[in-house]
């Protein structure tokens, strides 16, 4: 979030803002925001130069569709991570929501699609409420709590599903079409998720409660002493993350059509990777949902690009891992530069 910390810092150092370091800070944030986009554009440019088929409509559609689900999950995850928590249960929530919602079509013939979406989101809200309540009220680390709910929710999913599965033929055509229809070559789902991400970005940037998530992530204790209802905010971020994972489950079901008890297994670490590659600090306090979405898009683009280039798909894991480590290192470097820039600035501000 290009403005996030900057605003906070302006507030912290009072009205006496010195022009030069401020520009420096802005520039750094611009690097942070543009870094990921530059890598993405560079990657697409090189790949397209080598293989023209890369930007074919069909290919772009697949990349966008695959990235959409991770970008959606990354939206919820970002809200949790900026407040210095983590939600590892998103993959399990996606799985259980995908199965239960898709199964509704078989159980209740002619059930309206919006109701199915509502059920999926409701399942996510329930899971998020459990995560949030235990983390915020119990004051126990979210890493442990959501690791536990990752197991529990997946276990419940397995108990419900058993060996069964929902197959695409049991789903109404209009539901399956959700994952297929496009507007000017861009999948409808992607557009809808982009709107959601924009809304999320606006919320984190401009709403008081959104700003407070950054404050909590920067320094939980200071945030609490400043009168921010930290427990309430953290609780809400988990509920939101759960709701979004529930929604992602329904989208997943529409896109893939076949749902069994393994849907979304292992997604949690990919989502956290996307968020971190997108420039969200793992220990909270900075980063944006837009960056996280681009992180998801970048990971997906790399997968497809390697495939299109005829580089063995065996390489993408390693390249993704390498990129992730580069992103973390770069992010750390930027943070250090920023901190020293702020330190230089503060005596004059006071």
């Amino acid at each position: 979030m290009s403005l996030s910390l900057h605003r906070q810092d302006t507030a912290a150092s009072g009205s006496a803002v010195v022009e030069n370091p401020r520009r420096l800070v802005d520039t750094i944030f611009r690097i942070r925001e543009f870094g990921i986009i530059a890598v993405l554009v560079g990657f697409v440019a090189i790949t397209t130069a080598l293989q023209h088929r890369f930007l074919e409509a069909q290919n772009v559609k697949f990349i966008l569709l695959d990235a959409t689900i991770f970008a959606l999950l990354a939206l919820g995850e970002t809200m949790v991570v900026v407040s210095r928590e983590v939600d590892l249960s998103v993959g399990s929530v996606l799985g259980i929501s995908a199965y239960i919602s898709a199964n509704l079509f078989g159980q209740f013939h002619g059930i309206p699609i919006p109701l199915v979406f509502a059920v999926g989101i409701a399942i996510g809200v329930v899971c998020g409420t459990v995560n949030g309540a235990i983390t915020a009220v119990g004051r126990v680390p979210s890493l442990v709590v959501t690791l536990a709910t990752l197991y529990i929710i997946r276990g419940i999913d397995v108990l419900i599903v058993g060996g069964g599965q929902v197959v695409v033929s049991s789903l109404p055509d209009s539901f399956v079409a959700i994952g297929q229809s496009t507007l000017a070559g861009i999948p409808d789902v992607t557009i809808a998720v982009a709107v959601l991400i924009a809304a999320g970005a606006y919320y984190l940037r401009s709403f008081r409660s959104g700003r407070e998530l950054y404050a909590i992530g920067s320094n939980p204790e200071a945030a609490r002493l400043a009168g921010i209802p930290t427990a309430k905010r953290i609780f809400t971020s988990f509920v939101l993350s759960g709701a979004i994972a529930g929604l992602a489950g329904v989208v997943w079901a529409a896109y893939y059509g076949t749902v069994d008890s393994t849907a979304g297994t292992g997604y949690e670490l990919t989502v956290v990777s996307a968020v971190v590659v997108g420039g969200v600090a793992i220990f909270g306090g900075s980063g944006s949902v837009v960056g996280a979405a681009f992180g998801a898009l970048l990971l997906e683009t790399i997968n497809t690009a390697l495939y299109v280039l005829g580089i063995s798909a065996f390489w993408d894991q390693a390249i993704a891992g390498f990129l992730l480590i580069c992103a973390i290192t770069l992010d750390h470097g930027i943070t250090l530069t920023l901190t020293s820039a702020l330190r230089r600035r503060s005596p004059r501000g006071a």
Partner: protein
Amino acid sequence: MAREVGAQALPGVAGDSEAELYVPGEKSTRTSGMLTGQSSGTVAKPSGAGRLRGLLRWESGLVLCVVAVLVLGISVSPAFLSSSNLLNMGLSNGEISIMALPMTLVVISGEIDLSVASTLGLSSSMIGYLWLHGWPMPGIIVTVLVMGLVLGGVNGILVTRFGLPSLAVTIGTLTLYQGVGIIVLGSTTVSNFPARYTNIGINAFPHTDLSWSTVIFLVLAVVFGVLLHATKVGRSIFAIGANREAAIYAGMRVKRIKTGLFVLSGVVCALAGVLYTFRLSTAEYDNGTGLELNVVAIVLLGGVSIFGGKGTMIGVVLSALVFAAIQNALFLTSFPQEALGVVIGALLLASVLAPKGGELLDRVRHALGSVRSPT
């Protein structure tokens, strides 16, 4: 509200200092944070006896757990305690239990290593690759162990010398090491290992009913237990995890010790990879995928604090036993084995909630009270 804020500010806590420095036990112990913050056990009860009591309570809880699972196991099947079942139990959980041992040290020092399963997988790929290229098995094993040392070293250097958060770094190396494994072996499956070696993976250790992996686990548990609880290095590990700054000021070689722990983790996970490959007599690129969270679960269930600075080796050994026995007992019943997660997850939640049960009850009561009589 104003009254509350004032009361919370009383301990004289500076707003911008590290959360680790706060006085716990007060309302100000806000432990929001994944790996930072304060576990109320470490400083809340400065008296050694109080702390010991708290730890003992968790370990005795685990002992009760073990007993309960044993009773359950015996009641569902008379074969539960048979020697062949004991062997099975050790075989199916040997590798993750072994990986939990160095993980315990890493977590107590305040870090985490999520790349353990990928290290296992990569060593399995390497074994397959080198075997295809005609290397002798002893040479392969040595090479793989050295590779584990390097992989752990990379984690350690990134965490200590670059100052990066281990949670993020090891998610990165999780993907990277797995990716390298895929490059090394591709879609090839190697399974023509001589029986002399694969027997190690499935047979009992000579003169016992225990699997090789169980024996190695027990030996390593004793070694690591002594290292952690009876040496200077072990005390340093606790000190670093409890308060890193203080440990640095006390002259401890924080970076060196942490790097050492990551290296140890790498080597032990590579060894687990050897055992895993022999047990399945197969080297494949996706061996061990996803096991990292099981390993973390065993460590946390063993009463090790995710914030570092707290935990015992005996707790983790008991926890590994509970983990293996529950899985085995459920396997013998008609209960779907995949739903094991519900039990493990519940135990995991209990492991973090139980130690703060009383505190929690007070808080809920307080919250309810303030709802009823708003001031």
